[in-house]
């Protein structure tokens, strides 16, 4: 069975280990600005919410891409950006309503969560279990999917 990231904001203490781990894993530097997962801090409610790509089934980024540069990794189900094909047009960055595909000016390509090929660094380094990598049918993941449905023109279509 495919696995997915499960995110439980209630367990997050805002330590930012996931952002650092992600940026180090992908970019070789400890720089939260280069992370593909982001922890939002809601001061008003004293709450932290880690947030990244949900690898949606009908991915807007993937269908919008003019050159097939976003493809599914069959082993993980992750939608991955193939750097050799990406022309940097950025249409995926506006097509994704979750804002989880971002342009990297340095490379002229886009970056997004790729589940680290099946061993996501964010989950590995999260000390509290707020981010875990679990079987895809667990309820937390389903809840993320429901968020997706709320924005959706496409999810409605599969209903």
């Amino acid at each position, binding site marked *: 069975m495919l696995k997915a990231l499960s995110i439980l904001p209630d367990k997050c203490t805002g330590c930012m280990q996931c952002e650092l781990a992600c940026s180090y894993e992908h970019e070789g530097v400890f720089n939260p600005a280069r992370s593909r997962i982001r922890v939002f801090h809601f001061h008003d409610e004293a709450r932290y919410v880690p947030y990244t790509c949900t690898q949606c089934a009908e991915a807007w980024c993937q269908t919008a891409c003019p050159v097939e540069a976003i493809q599914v990794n069959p082993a993980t189900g992750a939608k991955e950006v193939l750097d050799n094909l990406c022309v*940097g047009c950025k249409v995926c960055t506006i097509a994704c309503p979750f804002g989880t595909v971002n342009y990297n000016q340095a490379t002229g390509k886009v970056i997004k969560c790729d589940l680290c090929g099946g061993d996501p660094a964010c989950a590995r380094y999260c000390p509290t279990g707020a981010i875990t990598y679990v079987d895809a049918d667990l309820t937390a993941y389903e809840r993320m999917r429901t968020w997706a449905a709320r924005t959706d023109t496409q999810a409605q279509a599969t209903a």
Partner: protein
Amino acid sequence: MRYLIAGAGPAGVVAAETLRRHDHSATIRLFCGEQEPVYSRMAIPYLLSNKIDERGTWLREPGHFETLAVDLVHQRVETVEPDHHTVVLSDGRRETYDRMLIATGARPVSPPVPGLDQPGVHHCWTLADARAIAARARPGSRVVLMGAGFIGCIILEALVLRGVRLTVLEAEDRMVPRMLDATAGAMLRSWCEAKGVAIHTDTRVQAVEPMGAEALAVHCEQGTVFPADLLVVATGVAPNLDPVRNGSGATLRTGRGLQVDSRQQTSAPDVYAAGDVCEAADWYTGEGAVYAIQPVAVEQGRIAALNMCGRPARYAGALPMNVLDTLGLVTVSFGHWSGVAGGDSVRQSDPEHHRYLRLEFDPQGRLVGAIAVGLPGHVGVLRGLIQSGAPLGPWQARLKQAPGRIAEAYVARVAGGG
């Protein structure tokens, strides 16, 4: 079941793939009107700037359609005959369908300016156009770009990267008038000018005449004349309605485009339309709109195909969205960025650093449009906030204080975070 798809652009291709996913045994025939591999218009600027070769513009890998058992047929669909469930092809043959999709895209339109039909004048819409432009746009050559709309601005960068001496002529008062407001348009202009591009707004081309053996003289209303080795005309596109001009096809309801309902069905049973060719309801006003952009085309292609194969699906409406990278300055716009009646808005502008964010709210406290210049990341959440229609609640006031908190607002109001 026998499906025909007229047009092998992004809308037609996504439709063919969606049909196959849900109907393993159907006959699916995809008609490609250009004698080219199935390619992507959007990739043309990157071909011109030599970032990719022609193969890099292909929409799908070779062999893809064979694998899917989709018959790719290099023929134009000349006429759709809904009363007989048939189409007439360019070789004169007739084919029948159970359901068909018209995805013939748009075609460039030229203003009524004398002299646009001579050598050295090109649109930038097809691979053939791109080859012709590449042949003339050489380092140092004088290129005039007529029209600084969305497509014009996309190829602007490619032309500069080719090393040409570029002059841009725009009839309206600013660059990309349908995507950017005056503030953002001015930022883009000063950015381009700083990079050595000559931009003339409020400038209409009156006539184009030959000049010597190879060159052109581009005459403007003010009396100015621009010499050019190449004139690129990017003055807009219009739905390509050729297949529904004759016979019973002409009974299909059209406005500015082929009109469809929320299931992407035309006024005839079993005939659907998707992409640049069709006029679909705007997501907010419900009025018919032709936005001619890739994300809308592929989403409509998918919705049309689902309905064609008996899986009822509704399109939530077309949402305009554009992103432009002009020599390093990234601009985006979404939805009704000029605002709606009774709404509210916030603007944060830093012209010196070419940064700008404008958010528009409707009277119900929802985000309905946005423009951003030089925004660092997570721009997609603007779409999420707009299209989810989520009431912003306390976040409207927070965004008015600090518009840059859009990603937080999204996570809080849509993603169930805050």
